[in-house]
């Protein structure tokens, strides 16, 4: 660590250029954020919402990391932690070799140039009483930067870059449509030539035709400016389109982190598989796809008291005793694909000694089609046992029926 810390100066960066490229831009270790729940007159802490509960990942230079998960899984909190809009409860965040975990507001300020954020709501994130010129030039004012050719010229260049007319300089946010506002947010985020941009649901508030415009724009800007993106989204189709690597979160944990193509063609975590099967496919003839759909029972458990062991065990059709008692570590089982699961899909069983399904798992399996169960049985002795038991039961039933006749 001491080695990385001494390398804060820019001169050092250039001399170590070669090894620099190998090093990730952002490294997160054991990141935790608990929001306290206070109760009573004395506001004693009665518990905590474990929004992010120990996650590790890296963001490589120039890549796009997609983060997906259902609402309440902690993906937005994670985004706010790595941009240090929130103070982490524990863990470590390292940006370009510098530990930024507990930097003060003042200490963070120089780094704000390098890390920027694009927000979901293009209505809430732009001050309605400021002109577009004021909004996009705010970063220059705050950082005391005087761009070449003056602020106004630079702002107009940025507006042009994101596909807006430079004449919009004196207009107010309400004069723009949702897609245009999102472009303004992007122009503001890019003003200081950041190295990493964290985008929290950048297109989910937009219509599909406009969404495509913004996705393409972000794509072009990445190529042009060599940006690194962390894109947080709940739309798995968008994430598939934009990401190089994808992290799947469930209840404050990363359950799977893999290269895009590997994740989408051969997901290893049962939750990833269920999540992807739930996305409606715009292809009416794919009737087969519907039978592959995995319906999950009930809702995501509360992050105040998450389930023990593997957090998905209460809804997983493969869960066994070990899932209830032991938390699976996030392991790189295949090159470029890490997963936290005792009984992964598309890979050999990590806990083959466990051959009995939990009761909850048996209930969950009722909602899972036979095709999916057969696939799961290949990688899990417990599911295989259950499937053969069900088949045996069916056979005896039919033989009984024939005997009756």
């Amino acid at each position: 660590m001491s080695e990385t810390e001494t390398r804060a100066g820019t001169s050092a960066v250039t001399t170590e250029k070669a090894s620099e490229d190998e090093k990730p831009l952002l490294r997160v270790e054991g990141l935790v954020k608990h929001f306290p729940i206070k109760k009573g007159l004395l506001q004693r802490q009665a518990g905590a919402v474990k929004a992010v509960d120990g996650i590790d990942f890296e963001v490589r230079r120039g890549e796009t990391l997609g983060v997906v998960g259902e609402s309440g899984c902690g993906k937005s909190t994670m985004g706010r932690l790595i941009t240090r809009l929130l103070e982490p409860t524990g863990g470590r965040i390292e940006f370009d070799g510098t530990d930024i975990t507990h930097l003060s507001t003042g200490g963070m300020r120089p780094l704000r140039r390098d890390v920027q954020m694009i927000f979901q709501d293009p209505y809430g994130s732009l001050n309605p009483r400021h002109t577009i010129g004021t909004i996009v030039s705010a970063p220059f004012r705050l950082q005391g930067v005087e761009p070449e050719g003056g602020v106004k010229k630079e702002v107009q260049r940025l507006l042009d870059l994101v596909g807006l007319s430079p004449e919009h300089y004196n207009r107010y946010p309400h004069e723009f449509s949702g897609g245009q506002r999102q472009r303004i947010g992007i122009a503001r985020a890019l003003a200081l030539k950041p190295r990493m941009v964290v985008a929290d649901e950048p297109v989910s508030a937009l219509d599909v035709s406009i969404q495509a415009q913004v996705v393409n724009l972000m794509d072009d800007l990445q190529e042009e400016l060599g940006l690194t993106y962390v894109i947080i989204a709940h739309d798995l189709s968008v994430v598939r389109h934009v990401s190089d690597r994808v992290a799947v979160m469930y209840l404050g944990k990363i359950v799977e982190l893999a290269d895009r193509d590997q994740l989408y063609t051969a997901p290893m975590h049962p939750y990833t598989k269920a999540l992807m099967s739930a996305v409606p496919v715009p292809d009416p003839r794919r009737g087969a796809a519907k039978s592959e759909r995995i319906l999950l029972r009930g809702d995501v458990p509360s992050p105040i008291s998450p389930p023990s062991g593997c957090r998905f065990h209460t809804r997983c059709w493969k869960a066994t005793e070990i899932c209830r008692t032991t938390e699976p570590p996030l392991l790189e089982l295949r090159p470029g694909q890490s997963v936290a699961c005792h009984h992964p899909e598309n890979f050999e069983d990590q806990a083959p000694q466990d051959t009995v399904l939990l009761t909850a798992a048996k209930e969950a399996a009722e909602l899972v089609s036979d095709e999916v169960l057969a696939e799961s049985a290949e990688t899990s002795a417990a599911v295989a046992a259950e499937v053969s038991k069900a088949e045996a039961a069916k056979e005896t039933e039919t033989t009984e029926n024939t005997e009756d006749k």
Partner: protein
Amino acid sequence: MTDLSKTGAALGEPTRTGGTPSAFLDVRDLKVHFPTDDGLVKSVDGLSFQLEKGKTLGIVGESGSGKSVTSLAIMGLHRLGNRGKNVQMSGEIWLDGKELVSASPDEVRRLRGREMAMIFQDPLSAMHPYYTIGNQIVEAYRVHHKVDKKTARRRAVELLDRVGIPEPNKRVDSYPHEFSGGMRQRAMIAMALVNNPELLIADEPTTALDVTVQAQILDLIRDLQKEFGSAVVIITHDLGVVAEIADDILVMYGGRCVERGPVDDIFYEPQHPYTWGLLGSMPRIDREQTDRLIPVKGQPPSLINVPSGCAFNPRCPYADVPKGGITRTERPELREVGSRHFTACHLSSEDRTRIWNEEIAPKL
């Protein structure tokens, strides 16, 4: 209501009078216009479609294309509140042989909730926060049925159970805020179904939900439709949702229908450039895309100043293909291009087939 029909005549559009319709739901040349300080907002401007019982129609389009106003007009809810004060509505809406546009508010009220019911996008604001879920379902039932509270409550519990709420006996006394988003949406479906309506309109029923919950809700709507045999109109901007659930699709743009047809035709042989645009701008989860998305350029039209001619012409890459600038001067009418498949486009069918086969389909 009489002055409303006058408005229709004043708009100079001949209303087709084909007598009593055969379809269960038959909307003919529906127009809903809202006068505002900035001008007349033509939210729906001449929309026609039919829907049979047991079938599902998906209405897709961008925000502001008039899809929600259409559903409110069918339900007779466009008159409510401030914006309804001087709404101008014309055309015909036939539901099971009854005409709704000319019907009195009282007549529509008797039908609403009983023969036609609606599921809204945001169940938290569609439900009253002060009353329990059970109370609200009971109320909906007792408005249309003369039964005592006990029977109505039994009915509420039965319905909550049917839509998959665990422990319906206990949850019937919960308040909306005690439910999760998915459960609230289930409760709203229960409320909509309490009177066995024959027409169910779902306005973005899953937009606010996570995909896993969305899958549960779509599954539920499909099951319930099979069980009750109702006609379902599902309004959404998500083409994936309509591909899964709809039999027919109606694509709206600028308050008008640009294309309508069976679901397979719309996805595999779409005929309108706007439909091509929607398909091209959609990222896909089911296949690898190396190419960029093909967005529809420009912005959706203002409903006060709908572009003359074809409303889509300023954004259409093929606006100049038909000769003589007809796309800018003449509004295209819906023409039949296949069995039950209609499109409103000036492109000749040869041009459309050529463009689709050569330029659009290979990129999708």
